[in-house]
């Protein structure tokens, strides 16, 4: 007799738990219009917001005169764990002091090898490079992932 009672109470109890679960999904189903969290990407591209610190890729800041702050000191190149940065520079004789000085030719950045660890940005003494929010990085060819961060014709800002 006991076994029969147990058998049925187990079935009823089981149904109860199923209904409780259904209750929760039902609650969320009917409240769904209040708690939509899905974003309609890419339709909402224009209104997408990011947190300030969000890291998507490294970029170099240029001002309106096409000048940057990178003095080719190579600190970022040394700080990078993955060899994603290569600094190509010329040595130019400074007419005032007569000493040779590094001048940035190309700040090469391999996005494909970058782990977005932020070490280069922290290491840069002049805050020349920063993290941008440009997160759509897909390209058709791998070679497009390698880019020069300093714009063509840009030069060092006089301080």
């Amino acid at each position: 007799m006991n076994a029969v009672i147990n058998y049925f109470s187990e079935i009823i109890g089981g149904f109860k738990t199923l209904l409780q679960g259904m209750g929760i999904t039902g609650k969320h189903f009917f409240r769904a219009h209040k708690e939509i969290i899905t974003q309609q990407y890419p339709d909402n591209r224009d209104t997408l917001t990011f947190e300030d610190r969000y890291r998507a890729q490294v970029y170099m800041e240029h001002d309106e005169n096409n000048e940057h702050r990178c003095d080719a000191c190579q600190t970022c190149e040394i700080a990078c764990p993955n060899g994603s940065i290569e600094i190509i520079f010329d040595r130019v004789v400074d007419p005032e002091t007569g000493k040779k000085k590094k001048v940035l030719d190309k700040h090469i950045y391999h996005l494909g090898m970058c782990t977005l660890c932020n070490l280069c940005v922290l290491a840069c003494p002049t805050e020349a490079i920063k993290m941008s929010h440009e997160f759509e990085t897909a390209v058709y060819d791998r070679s497009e992932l390698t880019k020069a961060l300093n714009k063509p014709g840009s030069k060092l800002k006089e301080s």
Partner: protein
Amino acid sequence: MTTTEIDNKTGLVTQEYKINMGPQHPAAHGVLRLVLTLDGEIIEKVDPDLGYIHRGIEKMTERDTYKQIVHLTDRLDYLSSHINNEAVCLAVENALEIEVPDRVKVIRTIIAELTRLASHQLWWGVMGMDIGALTTFMYAFRDRELINDIMEETCGTRLTMNYNKPGGLMFDIHPNFQKRVKEFIKHFKVSLPEYNTLLSGNVIFKKRLQGIGYMSKEDAIAYGVSGPSARGSNISCDVRKIHPYSAYDRVDFNEILMEGGDSYDRYMVRMKEMEESMKIIEQLVDNIPEGDFETKTAAVLKLPKGEYYQKVESARGEFGVFIVSDGKKSPYRMKFRSPGFANLSILDKISRGHKIADLVAIMSSLDFVIPDIDR
């Protein structure tokens, strides 16, 4: 070796056979290949085959400086990335006898607990999905998104944060941090009981887990199982309690232990651990001490000659960092003791005699992250 048997009564020939589960199996949570030896539907042997995502991270550490190594550990157990980072930083700080400010310790602890919550949420969603309940996955990801947003605001990225560095943190917390963490806790206090009603009490779910994958206390110790999986077999092994680091010595929380040792108990340990994590965060979030977010360190750190070990409690168990230094700027050898590897080793033992479908449940209850096993 295959054995062939002929049933005397019916004359039917039965034979052991082998199948592959993975490496691209939706229930395997990553590229893990299991070679299953089966007798009909019954599992006779499980042979894990690793190496599909071996990246040689331990070898890579020998090339990098200590500051660069930290970001590599994001890529071990990516769901506990902050906790892994913390382990390396603590090891280096101990070796160099750097005293980090109180503020750093508290912030590290809060973020570690948020990481643990996010990891357990994801595990809960995926566990439900493995058993066949798709709703859990959606709910878990909805709530986990809130934590990811907090991480994005303060640390800069959502998953591989690299927020720690030897000596402190990369930046101070964002001014909104405390407010958002409190909002999240408020939200999740409502959600977690829903999780329990939805899945933990569900009769089908219970029947699928209770009595499945029994792990005895002795076996768990013998195989070096740690974390929630071991605590489901009543082994007290919480590093946060036994060897407190960062700010765990100043918070009040319980170590969750269950007696049963089956998949359901391992499941319940994690569910209850989420409550404890919330408790820890609540105690700390209003009491973040003022101060610096870093101690200034040399540009290149050189550890004195010797051996150093630091263990922490990651979301999956005991994560250890062992450094052998010969006084140079990179370690001579660095070994990571990853919880997943030891936990995987017991899979064969506890799934013998169960059905294939149970294997999926057992694997979920052990909570594997494959890059952690296969580094």
